[in-house]
């Protein structure tokens, strides 16, 4: 696995410096003790309230430094990646933040964290400071384990303790509320890959088609291998295990945590699946989805549930300083707004007949359909080989609706063709031609003659499409053709279109459209320009004097 880093032994301090440098507000500071002591603390802390201190190994960002600020943590102590901080570091954080109101340590249940925070607490007490410790073990992966580990549900405790401290509660009541909350939190994680540590050899233990259920936040393997299946099925397994821990009739807050590298798109899909599962019946508040307590780049997520009462709900909803915290939101069905109807007057005109117009449209469409294969072959040399099919699809869609077109009204006909091409043809060429006909229709509707109206369409099409003559697109044929049509007549237009299409053979590089990605001499005509030339030739033949 590849990683962005400089040196293995400065990863954490460099990351903390970057975090502090971009935190902005001046609300944060760090203790001067690098590299042994890595403590981020509130710069505005005056020790009059209960200090809430947490931390652990690095690699869980934004935990824990990201949650330092008003209403959450007073200080965060970081160790090296996945290694608990030292006693000295924890003790330094306690000394820096603890006044007469005392200090609550929020510790995730790992041997290292328990020992280092525990020893620091003992030493701080020996110095005369009031220190309480709450240990969070919210993971339910192994139901019978004596010491369940602490994972993302720990953030509920940070939020509740931080809020109670901010509102001026004393150490005993903050600690009691934190301990009670810790007992009411249940979390479960799932992942499709483990995480890799920068600068450390990594061997992916996951097979192509499996994931792990019940894994923690350090890349330690999960309790169970699990076959890769739909997100809904995976969420259902997790929901079932979590639901078994819930009290019937109680309300819960749900925290949806990205363990590292799940794309936001998939996290939202997961949130949707969770809120469609039986678990949703009990959930009244959601936090996330988002990066809250990660495991480096683990491609997984965790779900955490906290039983709610009025005090916890108020604590979770209270605004906080740290930006990394995602506000708790009440669960509500999404609002769906009806699609707006077209403005009056823009509705389609009734079908009408015009023999000449119908003959013209049929000739153009049939010509384009006959060119499907040759144009595809030509396009395959430079683009994705679908120009012929795209154009033929558009032409067929026009032929299919020709009996419904208001042919006697040329402006309305151009508008209808624009609408049809925009929805049926697809691709960027469908949209560009739709713009061409829609703009031409507007020009015709305001009284412009056909030649000027088509030039107006071209103007809009090139404005939105970005191509101009010389860029090896259909514009190379269309622009000279329409100019000649307006100035001279149909035969001159056909000739100009042909010359324009032939000129694209020598054009070195396409600057717009798919061919733009190639950037070398192609020695073939642009298929779009060629199609334009063929259409003008067909139309000129149609109207040629017998």
């Amino acid at each position, binding site marked *: 696995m590849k990683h962005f880093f400089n040196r293995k032994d400065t990863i954490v301090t460099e990351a903390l410096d970057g975090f502090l440098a971009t935190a902005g507000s001046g609300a944060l500071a760090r203790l001067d003790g690098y590299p*042994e002591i890595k403590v981020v603390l509130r710069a505005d802390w005056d020790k009059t309230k209960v200090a809430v201190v947490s931390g652990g*190994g690095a690699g869980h960002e934004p935990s824990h430094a990201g949650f330092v600020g008003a209403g959450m943590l007073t200080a965060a102590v970081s*160790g*090296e*990646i*996945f*290694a*608990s*901080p*030292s*006693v*000295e*570091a924890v003790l330094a954080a306690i000394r820096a933040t603890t006044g007469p109101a005392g200090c609550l340590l929020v510790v995730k249940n*790992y*041997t*290292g964290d328990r*020992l*280092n925070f525990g*020893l620091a607490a003992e030493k701080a007490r020996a110095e005369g400071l009031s220190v309480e410790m709450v240990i969070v073990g919210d*993971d339910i*992966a*192994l139901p019978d*384990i*004596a*010491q369940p*580990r602490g994972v993302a549900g720990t953030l509920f405790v940070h939020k509740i303790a931080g809020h109670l401290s901010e509102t001026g509660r004393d150490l005993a009541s903050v600690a009691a509320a934190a301990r009670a909350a810790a007992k009411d939190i249940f979390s479960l994680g799932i992942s499709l890959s483990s995480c890799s*540590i920068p600068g*450390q*050899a990594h*061997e992916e233990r996951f097979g192509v088609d499996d994931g792990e259920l019940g*894994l*923690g936040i*350090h*890349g*330690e*393997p*999960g*309790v169970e291998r699990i076959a890769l299946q739909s997100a809904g099925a995976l969420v259902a397994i997790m929901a079932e295990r979590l639901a078994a821990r819930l009290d019937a009739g109680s309300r819960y807050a749900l925290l949806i945590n990205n363990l590292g590298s799940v794309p936001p798109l998939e996290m939202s899909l997961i949130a949707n699946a969770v809120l469609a599962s039986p678990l949703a019946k009990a959930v009244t508040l959601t936090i996330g989805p988002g990066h809250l307590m990660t495991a480096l780049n683990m491609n997984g997520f965790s779900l955490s549930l906290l039983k709610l009462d009025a005090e916890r709900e108020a604590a979770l909803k209270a605004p906080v300083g740290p930006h990394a915290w995602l506000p708790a939101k009440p669960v509500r069905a999404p609002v769906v707004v009806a699609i707006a109807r077209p403005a009056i007057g823009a509705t389609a005109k009734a079908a009408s007949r015009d023999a000449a117009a119908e003959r013209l449209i049929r000739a153009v469409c049939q010509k384009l359909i006959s060119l499907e294969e040759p144009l595809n072959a030509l396009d395959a040399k430079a683009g994705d080989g679908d120009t012929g099919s795209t154009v033929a699809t558009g032409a067929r869609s026009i032929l299919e609706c020709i009996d419904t077109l208001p042919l006697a009204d040329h402006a309305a006909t151009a508008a209808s063709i624009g609408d049809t091409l925009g929805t049926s043809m697809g691709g960027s060429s469908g949209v560009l031609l739709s713009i061409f006909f829609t703009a031409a229709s507007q020009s015709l509707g305001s009284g412009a003659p056909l030649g000027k109206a088509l030039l107006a369409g071209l103007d809009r099409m090139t404005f939105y499409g970005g191509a101009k003559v010389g860029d090896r697109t259909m514009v190379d044929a269309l622009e000279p053709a329409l100019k000649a049509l307006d100035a001279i007549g149909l035969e001159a237009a056909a000739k100009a279109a042909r010359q324009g299409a032939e000129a694209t053979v020598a054009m070195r590089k396409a600057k717009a459209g798919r061919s733009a990605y190639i950037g070398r001499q192609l020695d073939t005509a642009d298929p779009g320009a060629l199609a334009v030339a063929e259409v003008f030739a067909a139309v000129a033949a149609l109207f040629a004097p017998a």
Partner: protein
Amino acid sequence: MAAPDFSRLIAAAADTIAAHAEELTALDQAIGDGDHGLNMKRGFEAVRAEADAFAAKPLPEALKAVGTKLVMTVGGASGPLFGTLFMALGKDLPEAPDRNGLAAALGKAIEAVAARGKSQPGQKTMLDVLQPVYEALAQGKTATEIVIAADKAAEATVPMKALRGRASFLGERSIGHMDAGARSTALLVRAVAEAIEGI
């Protein structure tokens, strides 16, 4: 037994940990979080940096100082646990220990580590090596026999199911891998035995 220069013992311990750091990390990656090799290396390099100051103290004080250094500054779980081992050894060791004095102090130190980690032998931890080493020492086994006992004891953690530490979060899946802490303990036993006996 000969009383070796304490700074030589530190160098031997730090050398063996440095030489096996990758192996320890790989063992830890299999069933833990992969930080054991780095943690141990960081700890013993910190001790090596102050080896002369430690060696200037009487042996019990030197061991206590090494233990305190590991407990206070290393972090992870191994810092406090290995630190406790050395601190407790120093607490009960006579200034010029004989084999019985060493065995008695090791017995007390094992109790201290067990209390600190709320663990006991049989739970796939460093205690599974320390306990047989203590027994071999108390039974008057040779240094070579003690080293072999330590290696065998580390091997014996492979089929165990972890009940403490990060590997315990795997349940049955922790079976089939050697415990990294047991391995590092066996490595330290070998390094110390070789330094003392010159084997």
